Protein backbone atom coordinates (compact mmCIF):
# COMPACT_ATOMS: atom_id res chain seq x y z
CA UNK A 1 0.00 0.00 0.00
CA UNK A 2 1.48 3.30 -1.04
CA UNK A 3 -1.59 5.51 -0.66
CA UNK A 4 -3.77 6.56 2.24
CA UNK A 5 -7.57 6.29 2.39
CA UNK A 6 -7.82 9.51 0.38
CA UNK A 7 -5.58 8.24 -2.39
CA UNK A 8 -2.63 10.40 -1.38
CA UNK A 9 0.91 9.02 -1.53
CA UNK A 10 2.22 8.03 1.89
CA UNK A 11 5.08 10.01 3.35
CA UNK A 12 8.15 8.15 4.54
CA UNK A 13 7.06 8.61 8.15
CA UNK A 14 3.57 7.34 7.36
CA UNK A 15 5.02 4.22 5.73
CA UNK A 16 7.03 3.51 8.87
CA UNK A 17 4.01 4.07 11.13
CA UNK A 18 1.93 1.71 9.03
CA UNK A 19 4.70 -0.89 9.18
CA UNK A 20 4.76 -0.68 12.99
CA UNK A 21 0.99 -1.11 13.07
CA UNK A 22 1.13 -4.14 10.83
CA UNK A 23 3.96 -5.68 12.81
CA UNK A 24 1.90 -5.34 16.00
CA UNK A 25 -1.07 -6.98 14.26
CA UNK A 26 1.14 -9.80 13.16
CA UNK A 27 2.48 -10.29 16.69
CA UNK A 28 -1.09 -10.71 17.96
CA UNK A 29 -1.14 -13.98 16.05
CA UNK A 30 1.95 -15.30 17.79
CA UNK A 31 2.00 -17.48 20.90
CA UNK A 32 3.50 -14.93 23.27
CA UNK A 33 3.85 -14.87 27.07
CA UNK A 34 1.27 -12.72 28.91
CA UNK A 35 3.74 -9.88 29.36
CA UNK A 36 4.11 -9.59 25.60
CA UNK A 37 0.61 -10.61 24.48
CA UNK A 38 -1.16 -8.04 26.65
CA UNK A 39 1.23 -5.17 26.03
CA UNK A 40 1.31 -5.77 22.29
CA UNK A 41 -2.50 -5.51 22.25
CA UNK A 42 -2.40 -2.35 24.32
CA UNK A 43 0.15 -0.90 21.90
CA UNK A 44 -1.91 -1.95 18.89
CA UNK A 45 -4.98 -0.17 20.31
CA UNK A 46 -2.97 3.05 20.48
CA UNK A 47 -1.39 2.53 17.07
CA UNK A 48 -4.86 2.20 15.59
CA UNK A 49 -5.43 5.79 16.66
CA UNK A 50 -2.38 6.78 14.63
CA UNK A 51 -3.28 4.98 11.43
CA UNK A 52 -6.97 5.86 11.74
CA UNK A 53 -6.19 9.49 12.57
CA UNK A 54 -3.79 9.86 9.66
CA UNK A 55 -6.28 8.14 7.33
CA UNK A 56 -3.84 5.32 6.62
CA UNK A 57 -6.08 2.44 7.70
CA UNK A 58 -9.45 1.96 9.35
CA UNK A 59 -10.69 -1.37 10.63
CA UNK A 60 -11.96 -3.20 13.68
CA UNK A 61 -9.56 -5.34 15.69
CA UNK A 62 -11.84 -7.38 17.93
CA UNK A 63 -10.74 -10.65 16.39
CA UNK A 64 -7.25 -9.91 17.66
CA UNK A 65 -8.55 -9.17 21.16
CA UNK A 66 -8.04 -5.43 20.68
Amino acid sequence: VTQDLLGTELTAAEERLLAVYRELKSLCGEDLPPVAASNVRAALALMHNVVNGLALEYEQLSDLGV
Partner: protein
Amino acid sequence: VGSDSPYWNPKVETLGRAELEALQLAKLRRQAAWALQRSPWYQRTLAGLDIESLRSLQDLRRLPVLTREDWMSSQAEHPPYGELPAIGGDGAIRVHTTSGTTGKDPLRALDSRKDWAWIAEMWAYGIWGCGVRPGDTAYIAFGYGSFIGFWGLHYSMEKVGVLVVPGGAQTTEARVRQIIDFGATVVASTPTYALRLAQEAAALRIDLPASPVQRLILSGEPAGSIPQTKALIEEQWGAKAYDTAGMTEIGTIMVFECSDQPGGTHIIEDQVIEEVVDPESMQPVPYGERGERVVTSFGRGAIPLLRYRTGDLVCRIPASRCSCGRGFDIYEGGILGRVDDMKIIRGTNVYPRAIEAIVREFSEVDEFQTVITREGVRDEITLRVELKPDCPRDGWDGLEQALRKSLAHAHEGLAFRVEQASAGELPRFELKAKRTVDMREAPIGAAST
Protein backbone atom coordinates in the same frame (compact mmCIF):
# COMPACT_ATOMS: atom_id res chain seq x y z
CA VAL B 1 5.02 19.73 13.83
CA GLY B 2 4.88 19.06 17.55
CA SER B 3 3.63 20.99 20.51
CA ASP B 4 3.68 24.15 18.32
CA SER B 5 0.82 22.82 16.20
CA PRO B 6 -2.56 24.33 17.02
CA TYR B 7 -4.12 21.09 15.76
CA TRP B 8 -4.00 17.65 17.34
CA ASN B 9 -4.20 16.05 13.90
CA PRO B 10 -3.19 18.67 11.30
CA LYS B 11 -3.55 16.30 8.34
CA VAL B 12 -7.26 15.74 8.72
CA GLU B 13 -8.34 18.80 10.72
CA THR B 14 -7.40 21.00 7.78
CA LEU B 15 -8.93 18.89 5.02
CA GLY B 16 -11.36 20.56 2.63
CA ARG B 17 -15.03 19.54 2.53
CA ALA B 18 -14.72 17.20 -0.47
CA GLU B 19 -11.75 15.31 0.99
CA LEU B 20 -13.38 15.10 4.39
CA GLU B 21 -16.54 13.62 2.93
CA ALA B 22 -14.53 11.14 0.85
CA LEU B 23 -12.80 9.99 4.03
CA GLN B 24 -16.15 9.72 5.82
CA LEU B 25 -17.56 7.63 2.99
CA ALA B 26 -14.58 5.25 3.02
CA LYS B 27 -15.00 4.72 6.76
CA LEU B 28 -18.78 4.47 6.55
CA ARG B 29 -18.57 1.56 4.14
CA ARG B 30 -16.19 -0.32 6.40
CA GLN B 31 -18.17 0.37 9.58
CA ALA B 32 -21.48 -0.57 7.94
CA ALA B 33 -19.91 -3.81 6.68
CA TRP B 34 -18.61 -4.58 10.18
CA ALA B 35 -22.03 -3.93 11.73
CA LEU B 36 -23.78 -6.07 9.15
CA GLN B 37 -21.32 -8.88 9.67
CA ARG B 38 -21.24 -8.96 13.47
CA SER B 39 -24.13 -7.17 15.19
CA PRO B 40 -27.42 -9.12 15.48
CA TRP B 41 -29.30 -5.80 15.54
CA TYR B 42 -27.85 -4.57 12.27
CA GLN B 43 -28.07 -8.01 10.68
CA ARG B 44 -31.80 -7.58 11.06
CA THR B 45 -32.19 -3.86 10.34
CA LEU B 46 -29.67 -3.71 7.48
CA ALA B 47 -30.64 -7.06 5.96
CA GLY B 48 -30.16 -6.96 2.23
CA LEU B 49 -27.92 -3.89 2.28
CA ASP B 50 -25.28 -3.98 -0.45
CA ILE B 51 -22.29 -2.11 0.93
CA GLU B 52 -21.20 -1.32 -2.62
CA SER B 53 -24.41 0.69 -2.99
CA LEU B 54 -23.12 3.27 -0.48
CA ARG B 55 -21.60 5.52 -3.12
CA SER B 56 -22.06 8.91 -1.48
CA LEU B 57 -22.95 10.35 1.90
CA GLN B 58 -26.47 10.90 0.60
CA ASP B 59 -26.80 7.11 0.49
CA LEU B 60 -26.43 7.10 4.27
CA ARG B 61 -29.98 8.41 4.48
CA ARG B 62 -31.25 5.13 3.09
CA LEU B 63 -30.20 3.39 6.30
CA PRO B 64 -32.73 3.17 9.14
CA VAL B 65 -32.25 5.35 12.20
CA LEU B 66 -31.55 3.90 15.63
CA THR B 67 -33.29 5.42 18.65
CA ARG B 68 -32.61 5.39 22.34
CA GLU B 69 -35.85 3.46 22.73
CA ASP B 70 -34.57 0.82 20.30
CA TRP B 71 -31.41 0.44 22.32
CA MET B 72 -33.20 0.26 25.66
CA SER B 73 -35.84 -2.21 24.51
CA SER B 74 -33.16 -4.43 22.99
CA GLN B 75 -31.26 -4.25 26.27
CA ALA B 76 -34.42 -5.23 28.17
CA GLU B 77 -35.22 -8.11 25.83
CA HIS B 78 -31.66 -9.41 25.64
CA PRO B 79 -30.00 -8.45 28.92
CA PRO B 80 -27.55 -7.18 29.85
CA TYR B 81 -26.32 -5.53 26.62
CA GLY B 82 -29.00 -6.12 24.00
CA GLU B 83 -28.44 -7.08 20.37
CA LEU B 84 -26.40 -4.08 19.25
CA PRO B 85 -22.97 -5.31 20.37
CA ALA B 86 -20.77 -6.80 17.70
CA ILE B 87 -18.73 -8.60 20.33
CA GLY B 88 -19.60 -10.36 23.59
CA GLY B 89 -18.78 -9.05 27.03
CA ASP B 90 -15.72 -11.30 27.07
CA GLY B 91 -14.19 -9.30 24.22
CA ALA B 92 -14.62 -5.97 26.00
CA ILE B 93 -12.52 -4.31 28.66
CA ARG B 94 -14.95 -1.66 29.96
CA VAL B 95 -18.64 -1.20 30.54
CA HIS B 96 -20.12 2.21 31.27
CA THR B 97 -23.62 3.52 31.69
CA THR B 98 -25.59 6.71 31.23
CA SER B 99 -25.86 8.98 34.25
CA GLY B 100 -29.35 7.74 35.10
CA THR B 101 -30.53 11.22 36.10
CA THR B 102 -33.94 10.59 34.57
CA GLY B 103 -34.63 7.72 36.94
CA LYS B 104 -34.88 5.25 34.06
CA ASP B 105 -32.71 2.19 33.63
CA PRO B 106 -29.28 3.27 32.45
CA LEU B 107 -28.02 2.44 29.01
CA ARG B 108 -25.03 0.07 29.07
CA ALA B 109 -22.15 0.44 26.65
CA LEU B 110 -19.25 -1.93 26.04
CA ASP B 111 -15.79 -0.98 24.84
CA SER B 112 -12.94 -3.03 23.46
CA ARG B 113 -9.30 -2.03 24.01
CA LYS B 114 -9.31 -0.18 20.69
CA ASP B 115 -12.60 1.54 21.46
CA TRP B 116 -11.34 2.74 24.81
CA ALA B 117 -8.15 4.09 23.25
CA TRP B 118 -10.30 5.92 20.68
CA ILE B 119 -12.46 7.48 23.38
CA ALA B 120 -9.42 9.20 24.86
CA GLU B 121 -8.26 10.13 21.35
CA MET B 122 -11.45 12.08 20.69
CA TRP B 123 -10.95 14.09 23.84
CA ALA B 124 -7.38 14.76 22.72
CA TYR B 125 -8.70 16.65 19.66
CA GLY B 126 -10.63 18.85 22.07
CA ILE B 127 -8.11 19.51 24.80
CA TRP B 128 -5.29 20.15 22.35
CA GLY B 129 -7.55 22.38 20.28
CA CYS B 130 -8.28 24.65 23.23
CA GLY B 131 -4.63 24.95 24.16
CA VAL B 132 -3.88 22.29 26.78
CA ARG B 133 -0.24 21.23 26.47
CA PRO B 134 2.40 19.04 28.16
CA GLY B 135 3.37 20.78 31.38
CA ASP B 136 -0.19 21.67 32.33
CA THR B 137 -1.72 20.33 35.53
CA ALA B 138 -5.34 19.27 35.13
CA TYR B 139 -7.84 18.88 37.94
CA ILE B 140 -10.78 16.67 36.96
CA ALA B 141 -13.78 17.32 39.22
CA PHE B 142 -15.62 14.11 38.50
CA GLY B 143 -16.90 11.14 40.49
CA TYR B 144 -15.13 8.38 38.48
CA GLY B 145 -18.03 5.95 38.65
CA SER B 146 -19.88 3.88 36.07
CA PHE B 147 -21.12 7.05 34.32
CA ILE B 148 -18.65 7.60 31.50
CA GLY B 149 -18.45 11.41 31.98
CA PHE B 150 -14.85 12.63 32.09
CA TRP B 151 -13.16 9.21 32.03
CA GLY B 152 -12.00 9.74 28.46
CA LEU B 153 -10.77 13.22 29.28
CA HIS B 154 -8.62 11.78 32.06
CA TYR B 155 -6.89 9.37 29.69
CA SER B 156 -6.46 12.00 27.00
CA MET B 157 -4.71 14.27 29.48
CA GLU B 158 -2.28 11.47 30.35
CA LYS B 159 -1.73 10.81 26.64
CA VAL B 160 -0.87 14.45 25.96
CA GLY B 161 1.56 14.52 28.87
CA VAL B 162 -0.45 16.56 31.33
CA LEU B 163 -0.12 16.00 35.09
CA VAL B 164 -3.58 14.79 36.10
CA VAL B 165 -5.18 15.20 39.53
CA PRO B 166 -8.21 12.88 39.67
CA GLY B 167 -10.73 14.76 41.82
CA GLY B 168 -12.87 11.74 42.68
CA ALA B 169 -15.31 11.33 45.54
CA GLN B 170 -14.66 14.39 47.69
CA THR B 171 -16.46 17.39 49.05
CA THR B 172 -16.55 20.56 47.00
CA GLU B 173 -14.39 22.26 49.61
CA ALA B 174 -11.75 19.52 49.34
CA ARG B 175 -11.75 19.87 45.57
CA VAL B 176 -11.27 23.63 45.71
CA ARG B 177 -8.38 23.20 48.11
CA GLN B 178 -6.75 20.58 45.85
CA ILE B 179 -7.09 22.82 42.81
CA ILE B 180 -5.11 25.46 44.68
CA ASP B 181 -2.68 23.09 46.44
CA PHE B 182 -1.67 21.29 43.24
CA GLY B 183 -1.48 24.51 41.24
CA ALA B 184 -3.94 23.29 38.61
CA THR B 185 -3.78 25.18 35.32
CA VAL B 186 -6.76 23.33 33.83
CA VAL B 187 -10.02 22.35 35.55
CA ALA B 188 -12.65 20.06 34.03
CA SER B 189 -16.24 19.99 35.27
CA THR B 190 -19.81 20.60 34.23
CA PRO B 191 -20.71 24.30 33.81
CA THR B 192 -23.00 24.14 36.82
CA TYR B 193 -20.29 22.61 38.96
CA ALA B 194 -17.74 25.19 37.80
CA LEU B 195 -20.05 27.82 39.30
CA ARG B 196 -20.46 25.73 42.45
CA LEU B 197 -16.68 25.44 42.83
CA ALA B 198 -16.33 29.20 42.41
CA GLN B 199 -19.04 29.74 45.00
CA GLU B 200 -17.20 27.47 47.45
CA ALA B 201 -13.91 29.24 46.75
CA ALA B 202 -15.54 32.56 47.57
CA ALA B 203 -16.86 31.14 50.84
CA LEU B 204 -13.33 29.96 51.64
CA ARG B 205 -11.97 33.42 50.72
CA ILE B 206 -9.86 31.90 47.94
CA ASP B 207 -9.14 34.27 45.08
CA LEU B 208 -9.66 32.02 42.05
CA PRO B 209 -8.72 34.63 39.42
CA ALA B 210 -5.34 34.94 41.17
CA SER B 211 -4.81 31.16 40.96
CA PRO B 212 -2.83 29.47 38.14
CA VAL B 213 -6.03 28.15 36.52
CA GLN B 214 -6.05 29.27 32.88
CA ARG B 215 -8.60 26.99 31.26
CA LEU B 216 -11.85 25.30 32.16
CA ILE B 217 -12.98 22.32 30.08
CA LEU B 218 -16.76 22.20 30.33
CA SER B 219 -19.01 19.31 29.39
CA GLY B 220 -22.26 17.61 30.31
CA GLU B 221 -24.70 20.50 29.86
CA PRO B 222 -25.54 23.00 27.10
CA ALA B 223 -24.61 25.84 29.45
CA GLY B 224 -20.96 25.70 28.35
CA SER B 225 -22.00 27.56 25.22
CA ILE B 226 -24.64 29.87 26.73
CA PRO B 227 -22.75 33.17 26.47
CA GLN B 228 -24.07 34.61 29.75
CA THR B 229 -23.25 31.47 31.75
CA LYS B 230 -19.87 31.15 30.12
CA ALA B 231 -19.05 34.80 30.83
CA LEU B 232 -20.02 34.32 34.46
CA ILE B 233 -17.78 31.25 34.78
CA GLU B 234 -14.89 33.05 33.10
CA GLU B 235 -15.33 36.06 35.37
CA GLN B 236 -15.47 34.01 38.55
CA TRP B 237 -12.43 31.92 37.62
CA GLY B 238 -10.43 34.54 35.77
CA ALA B 239 -9.85 31.85 33.13
CA LYS B 240 -11.10 30.94 29.66
CA ALA B 241 -13.90 28.38 29.44
CA TYR B 242 -14.14 25.92 26.56
CA ASP B 243 -17.24 23.92 25.74
CA THR B 244 -17.28 20.27 24.69
CA ALA B 245 -20.15 17.83 24.27
CA GLY B 246 -20.39 14.08 24.08
CA MET B 247 -22.67 11.22 24.91
CA THR B 248 -22.45 7.77 26.47
CA GLU B 249 -23.83 6.23 23.29
CA ILE B 250 -20.67 7.34 21.47
CA GLY B 251 -18.49 7.02 24.56
CA THR B 252 -16.79 10.37 24.23
CA ILE B 253 -17.04 13.89 22.87
CA MET B 254 -17.88 14.57 19.25
CA VAL B 255 -17.53 18.38 19.36
CA PHE B 256 -15.15 20.84 20.96
CA GLU B 257 -14.55 24.56 21.13
CA CYS B 258 -11.18 25.62 19.73
CA SER B 259 -8.94 28.33 21.14
CA ASP B 260 -10.35 30.86 18.64
CA GLN B 261 -13.74 30.46 20.36
CA PRO B 262 -16.03 30.96 17.34
CA GLY B 263 -19.21 30.91 19.43
CA GLY B 264 -19.70 27.23 18.86
CA THR B 265 -18.10 23.82 18.78
CA HIS B 266 -16.27 22.06 15.94
CA ILE B 267 -17.51 18.60 14.92
CA ILE B 268 -14.70 16.01 14.82
CA GLU B 269 -15.70 15.06 11.32
CA ASP B 270 -13.06 12.51 10.46
CA GLN B 271 -14.44 10.35 13.27
CA VAL B 272 -18.18 10.92 13.05
CA ILE B 273 -20.81 11.86 10.48
CA GLU B 274 -23.28 14.34 11.93
CA GLU B 275 -26.56 14.83 10.09
CA VAL B 276 -28.92 17.63 11.14
CA VAL B 277 -32.53 16.81 10.33
CA ASP B 278 -36.02 18.11 10.88
CA PRO B 279 -37.23 15.94 13.78
CA GLU B 280 -40.66 15.59 12.22
CA SER B 281 -39.87 14.92 8.57
CA MET B 282 -36.33 13.55 9.13
CA GLN B 283 -35.24 15.54 6.10
CA PRO B 284 -31.87 17.34 6.32
CA VAL B 285 -31.98 21.03 7.20
CA PRO B 286 -29.60 23.55 5.59
CA TYR B 287 -26.78 25.41 7.33
CA GLY B 288 -28.10 27.93 9.84
CA GLU B 289 -31.34 26.12 10.64
CA ARG B 290 -32.06 24.25 13.83
CA GLY B 291 -32.56 20.52 13.74
CA GLU B 292 -31.89 17.25 15.51
CA ARG B 293 -28.46 15.61 15.49
CA VAL B 294 -28.27 12.15 13.97
CA VAL B 295 -24.82 10.64 14.48
CA THR B 296 -22.86 7.87 12.83
CA SER B 297 -19.68 7.04 14.72
CA PHE B 298 -16.48 5.46 13.43
CA GLY B 299 -15.26 4.82 16.95
CA ARG B 300 -16.74 1.92 18.80
CA GLY B 301 -16.40 -1.45 17.16
CA ALA B 302 -18.03 -3.24 20.10
CA ILE B 303 -21.25 -1.29 19.60
CA PRO B 304 -21.45 0.14 16.07
CA LEU B 305 -23.56 3.28 15.93
CA LEU B 306 -25.16 4.04 12.57
CA ARG B 307 -27.64 6.91 12.27
CA TYR B 308 -28.41 7.29 15.95
CA ARG B 309 -31.11 9.85 16.77
CA THR B 310 -29.64 11.87 19.60
CA GLY B 311 -32.54 14.17 20.50
CA ASP B 312 -30.01 17.03 20.66
CA LEU B 313 -31.04 20.32 19.11
CA VAL B 314 -28.27 22.01 17.08
CA CYS B 315 -27.63 24.63 14.39
CA ARG B 316 -24.82 23.73 11.99
CA ILE B 317 -22.73 26.39 10.28
CA PRO B 318 -19.72 26.11 7.94
CA ALA B 319 -16.18 25.69 9.23
CA SER B 320 -15.26 28.95 7.52
CA ARG B 321 -17.09 30.87 10.25
CA CYS B 322 -14.09 30.18 12.49
CA SER B 323 -10.66 31.67 11.94
CA CYS B 324 -8.76 28.62 13.24
CA GLY B 325 -8.29 26.98 9.82
CA ARG B 326 -10.01 23.70 10.63
CA GLY B 327 -12.24 22.16 7.99
CA PHE B 328 -14.57 20.81 10.67
CA ASP B 329 -18.02 22.40 10.62
CA ILE B 330 -19.41 24.06 13.73
CA TYR B 331 -22.47 23.77 15.91
CA GLU B 332 -23.29 27.40 16.57
CA GLY B 333 -23.96 27.83 20.27
CA GLY B 334 -22.94 24.22 20.93
CA ILE B 335 -25.72 21.83 21.84
CA LEU B 336 -28.75 24.11 22.09
CA GLY B 337 -30.80 21.73 24.21
CA ARG B 338 -32.98 18.71 23.70
CA VAL B 339 -35.56 18.51 20.96
CA ASP B 340 -38.13 17.69 23.65
CA ASP B 341 -36.84 20.40 26.04
CA MET B 342 -39.25 22.98 24.73
CA LYS B 343 -42.22 23.72 26.94
CA ILE B 344 -45.38 25.36 25.67
CA ILE B 345 -46.89 27.74 28.19
CA ARG B 346 -50.16 29.37 27.15
CA GLY B 347 -49.14 29.03 23.52
CA THR B 348 -45.61 30.40 23.94
CA ASN B 349 -42.49 28.29 23.36
CA VAL B 350 -40.16 28.29 26.34
CA TYR B 351 -36.64 26.81 26.28
CA PRO B 352 -34.62 26.18 29.46
CA ARG B 353 -31.55 27.55 27.69
CA ALA B 354 -33.24 30.92 27.07
CA ILE B 355 -34.25 31.19 30.71
CA GLU B 356 -30.73 30.41 31.90
CA ALA B 357 -29.29 33.03 29.54
CA ILE B 358 -31.50 35.67 31.16
CA VAL B 359 -31.04 34.58 34.76
CA ARG B 360 -27.24 34.57 34.41
CA GLU B 361 -27.35 38.27 33.54
CA PHE B 362 -28.27 38.92 37.17
CA SER B 363 -25.23 38.57 39.38
CA GLU B 364 -27.37 38.47 42.53
CA VAL B 365 -28.71 35.01 41.60
CA ASP B 366 -26.97 32.02 43.13
CA GLU B 367 -29.22 29.20 41.93
CA PHE B 368 -32.58 28.96 40.20
CA GLN B 369 -35.34 26.57 39.21
CA THR B 370 -38.24 26.79 36.80
CA VAL B 371 -41.50 25.17 37.90
CA ILE B 372 -44.43 24.69 35.52
CA THR B 373 -47.86 23.98 36.98
CA ARG B 374 -51.44 23.70 35.78
CA GLU B 375 -53.95 25.67 37.78
CA GLY B 376 -57.44 24.80 36.59
CA VAL B 377 -57.15 25.16 32.84
CA ARG B 378 -54.30 27.65 32.92
CA ASP B 379 -50.58 26.82 32.82
CA GLU B 380 -48.28 28.87 35.03
CA ILE B 381 -44.51 29.19 34.94
CA THR B 382 -42.62 30.21 38.04
CA LEU B 383 -38.97 31.10 38.35
CA ARG B 384 -37.68 30.31 41.83
CA VAL B 385 -34.54 32.21 42.70
CA GLU B 386 -31.99 31.72 45.43
CA LEU B 387 -29.90 34.81 46.13
CA LYS B 388 -26.20 34.87 46.88
CA PRO B 389 -25.49 34.96 50.62
CA ASP B 390 -24.01 38.47 50.46
CA CYS B 391 -26.86 39.91 48.38
CA PRO B 392 -28.79 42.67 50.23
CA ARG B 393 -32.34 41.44 50.90
CA ASP B 394 -33.87 44.90 50.43
CA GLY B 395 -33.05 44.71 46.72
CA TRP B 396 -35.44 41.83 46.07
CA ASP B 397 -38.38 43.87 44.77
CA GLY B 398 -36.26 45.52 42.12
CA LEU B 399 -34.63 42.25 41.12
CA GLU B 400 -37.97 40.48 40.89
CA GLN B 401 -39.39 43.18 38.62
CA ALA B 402 -36.31 43.19 36.41
CA LEU B 403 -36.40 39.40 36.03
CA ARG B 404 -40.12 39.42 35.23
CA LYS B 405 -39.60 42.12 32.63
CA SER B 406 -36.63 40.38 30.94
CA LEU B 407 -38.34 36.99 30.90
CA ALA B 408 -41.55 38.42 29.46
CA HIS B 409 -39.62 40.41 26.87
CA ALA B 410 -37.85 37.25 25.66
CA HIS B 411 -41.08 35.22 25.58
CA GLU B 412 -43.61 37.24 23.62
CA GLY B 413 -44.94 38.93 26.76
CA LEU B 414 -45.53 35.69 28.67
CA ALA B 415 -45.97 36.51 32.36
CA PHE B 416 -43.60 34.58 34.63
CA ARG B 417 -44.05 34.41 38.35
CA VAL B 418 -40.80 35.09 40.20
CA GLU B 419 -40.36 33.81 43.74
CA GLN B 420 -37.50 33.96 46.19
CA ALA B 421 -36.30 30.60 47.54
CA SER B 422 -34.59 30.40 50.90
CA ALA B 423 -30.83 29.87 51.17
CA GLY B 424 -29.83 26.29 50.28
CA GLU B 425 -33.38 25.32 49.33
CA LEU B 426 -32.82 24.63 45.64
CA PRO B 427 -30.98 21.51 44.46
CA ARG B 428 -27.28 21.68 43.54
CA PHE B 429 -25.78 19.53 40.81
CA GLU B 430 -22.41 17.92 40.21
CA LEU B 431 -23.34 16.23 36.95
CA LYS B 432 -26.13 17.26 34.59
CA ALA B 433 -28.27 20.01 36.10
CA LYS B 434 -32.03 19.60 35.94
CA ARG B 435 -33.54 22.97 36.70
CA THR B 436 -36.91 22.64 34.97
CA VAL B 437 -39.68 20.84 36.83
CA ASP B 438 -42.87 20.32 34.85
CA MET B 439 -45.62 19.42 37.32
CA ARG B 440 -48.38 19.28 34.76
CA GLU B 441 -48.21 15.55 34.35
CA ALA B 442 -46.84 14.78 37.78
CA PRO B 443 -48.94 12.62 40.07
CA ILE B 444 -50.82 14.36 42.84
CA GLY B 445 -48.58 14.90 45.83
CA ALA B 446 -45.31 15.02 43.85
CA ALA B 447 -42.79 17.47 45.30
CA SER B 448 -41.55 20.43 43.29
CA THR B 449 -37.87 19.98 44.12
